[in-house]
């Protein structure tokens, strides 16, 4: 009997069965009464049915492999139609009551009671402060202990890896495709990317940007006189500001009327002058691009003659303190 009653109650809930309502006592209304709006009801029903159609269309389009636009359009359409039906219901089908209410008042007696409970519970304690300090020490230390294993995430205390680069004296330069770069192939008015042979391309210290300038135009910092054989300059391709690749090279076709040569970073437009050892001429970079000394081997291939002039990549506290390793 109960089971049948439940099933019929469920069916009635979904409006599929008609029943006689049992007699009830008339009571004072909680929710205000409102006028019916049959037209709005019909429109709402229409909207909901259209929404159903759109949702079905979505499933069909999905099954048939239609475009993202078809899928998005039908799903958005179904949701929008449901939204319209609900907003219509809000405005026309449910009564809009503007009722008075009260903001909650503070209850000082309860606040006092709370304070009292805590206070009175400590009636057996004679060394409250000492206990408190000990509890704080225990809790704090435990907290620190639980956090401590986070140090395994990385070399927290050892920043020496920030100085490491894959370049060594004698390491050959290779291009994107892995071919050795010959000094004779490096022309002016163009830029090249180079990588260390036999090492990963991914490290910040790996990629180089190469340009060739007229040796007479070079104004390199002191000590770098033989770093640029034939005017070929190699700099770290990683911007010293925020680590993006220096992927722009500005080189004039006609120097008198056009901007001077410059290596530029696409992220924040730090601009570096290759003739002066990639000194910063504009933009937020705080250091010049580190330069890699080059030499030409017996076969005419370019090799590193040492490590960079300074640490590569964006700066940190020790970026100027030690040479790269």
């Amino acid at each position, binding site marked *: 009997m109960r089971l049948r009653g439940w099933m019929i109650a469920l069916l009635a809930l979904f409006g599929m069965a008609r029943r006689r309502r049992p007699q009830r006592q008339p009571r004072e209304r909680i929710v205000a009464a409102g006028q019916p709006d049959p037209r709005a009801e019909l429109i709402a029903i229409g909207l909901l049915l259209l929404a159903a159609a759109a949702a079905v269309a979505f499933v069909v389009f999905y099954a048939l492999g239609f*475009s*993202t*636009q078809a899928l*998005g359009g039908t799903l958005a359409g179904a949701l929008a139609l449901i939204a319209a039906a609900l*907003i219509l219901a*809000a405005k026309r089908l449910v009564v809009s009551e503007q009722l008075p209410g009260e903001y909650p008042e503070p209850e000082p007696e309860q606040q006092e009671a709370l304070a009292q409970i805590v206070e009175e519970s400590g009636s057996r304690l004679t060394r409250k402060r000492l206990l408190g300090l000990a509890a704080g020490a225990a809790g704090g230390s435990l907290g620190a202990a639980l956090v401590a294993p986070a140090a395994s995430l990385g070399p927290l205390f050892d920043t020496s890896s920030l100085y490491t680069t894959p370049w060594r004296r004698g390491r050959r330069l290779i291009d*994107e495709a892995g071919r050795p770069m010959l000094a004779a*192939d490096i*022309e002016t*008015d*163009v*830029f*090249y*990317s180079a990588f260390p042979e036999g090492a990963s391309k991914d490290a910040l210290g790996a990629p180089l940007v190469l340009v060739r300038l007229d040796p007479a135009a070079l104004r390199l910092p002191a000590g770098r006189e033989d770093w640029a054989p034939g005017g070929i300059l190699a700099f770290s391709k990683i911007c010293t500001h925020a680590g993006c*690749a*220096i*992927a*722009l*090279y*500005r*080189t*004039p*076709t*006609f120097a*008198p*009327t*056009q*901007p001077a040569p*410059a290596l*530029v970073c*696409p992220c924040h*437009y730090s*601009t570096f002058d290759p003739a002066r050892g990639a000194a910063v001429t*504009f*933009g937020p970079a705080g250091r010049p691009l580190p330069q890699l000394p080059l030499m030409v081997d017996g076969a005419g291939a370019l090799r590193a003659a040492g490590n960079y002039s300074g640490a590569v990549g964006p700066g940190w506290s020790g970026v100027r303190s030690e040479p790269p390793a």
Partner: protein
Amino acid sequence: MSAAIRCLVIAVAALALAPAGARAQPPIVRPPESGALPAQQLGRELFAGNCATCHGSRGDGVASRGPALRGVGRRAPDFYLRTGYMPLGDPHDQPERSRLQFREREIRALIDYVDSLGGGPSVPEPHPERGSVADGLQLFTEHCAGCHQVVAEGGVVTGARVPPLDQATPVQIAEAVRLGPYVMPRFSERAISDPELDSIVAYVRYAQDPDDRGGWGISHLGPFPEGMVTWLIAGTLLVATCVLIGERLRRS
């Protein structure tokens, strides 16, 4: 709130209509009855009237105004004239793609004339159909995207605007790569081989109409136009929906 939205719409419309740094093009100087002149004479006279001021009467260049054109062959004039980069009103301006003022016959005459000044490289013949778009994407990203943006929408380098490549023909792409116009690097066959250039041209052609199956491509620039859609379209619609659903402040 609606007043603010109105202001925003007007501002956006004004921005959209503003000309993008229009550069004044110099008027073309034509010899009288240019249509009747033989090609060689036409070329010489057009050069004298439109180019010599900066490039010298015999193409030897003028120190503070323009480079020499002896030995540039057909490649350079074909590129600069067919894109409208030249003629350039002020030698300190950046040459940019402009409406062509020279007619086809005049362009050919000028190219022949400049070529006659000392010979030089011919117009390249790229074969994008032999190239691979996949290789082109990698090569373009490596050599070009820093300035031209990875989908060739153009951009900025300090001191110059970098043009989008949406109107570049295969020949113009090849010419630009080999010439390095204005401040662009000049990639010879040793830096970018002819087969690599074919792939780059194939990729640029693809980038002119790439796979936009996600919908409206909003110029393939990424977060900048996406942010504009968020605020101007989504933000407006959502605020409008809230105004529709909720009450408004009525003076009591």
